[in-house]
């Protein structure tokens, strides 16, 4: 069985909750990722922002230079255990309609949404690109 731990990316790119959408777009372009974790002043994860969140916001007329990421982010994150299989990860991505899951070492809570204690230090991220890499083997 192929496990999340073998295909995930270690570490998480973050952006401050007060950053503007322009700064988010710059980080997404720089790191060549499709989403970032949003952190508060203490560095704790308070949500997730994806390129499609930015796309939707600017489509609706929000100004990239003055809109703050906390206004458009998803205020929770989906998590999965390192021990989970890639099939389980794929099922969660399909059901929740997301392209990335935060990976934690501990057992996940019953509802797979943000729980501060689990997301304080996620081990990394599993994205749809990682699933593509697995299928390419």
């Amino acid at each position, binding site marked *: 069985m192929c496990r999340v731990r073998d295909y995930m990316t270690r570490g998480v790119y973050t952006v401050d909750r007060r950053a503007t959408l322009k700064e988010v777009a710059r980080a997404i*372009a720089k790191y060549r990722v*499709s989403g970032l974790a949003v952190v508060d002043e203490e560095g704790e994860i308070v949500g997730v922002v994806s390129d499609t969140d930015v*796309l939707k916001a600017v*489509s609706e007329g929000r100004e990239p230079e003055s809109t703050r990421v906390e206004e458009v982010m998803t205020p929770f994150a989906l998590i999965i255990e390192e021990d989970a299989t890639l099939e389980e990860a*794929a099922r969660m991505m399909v059901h929740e309609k997301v392209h990335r899951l935060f990976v934690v070492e501990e057992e996940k809570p019953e509802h797979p949404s943000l729980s501060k204690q689990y997301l304080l230090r996620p081990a990394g991220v599993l994205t749809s690109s990682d699933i*593509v890499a697995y*299928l390419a083997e």
Partner: protein
Amino acid sequence: MLDMRVVECLRRSIITVEKGMSIRDAARVMKNCGISGVLVMEGAKPVGVLSDTDLVKALYRGVSREARVEEVMSRKFFCIDPSATLLEAARIMSECGVSRLFVVKGARGETEVREMPEGIISVSDVMAAIAGESCEGC
């Protein structure tokens, strides 16, 4: 920024796979090219689009890696006119829930595509424009 025209930023090299190719080989193309979607061809005719989302669904459904691309691809094409702005491109991507648009004269949204599009524009091109970076169009 977002008032730039699609024609100024589009990528003219579209990565394609054949509809009879295996999922494994198509995934290799996507991985090696660092892209999240490819145009699926039957000879010279576009017949679908294969995205990373389609591949995640394939894994979820237990489809074999040896299955053909045409079994899991989407048959819908979402397009934009080359003279449209990047803001318009962002709107269509957002409305249609896609990460890339094929550039076809006179098209907006879901369109029938019978020949190779002029180019492709993706969400990463829009992000680069918002970030104030120059277009990488080729």
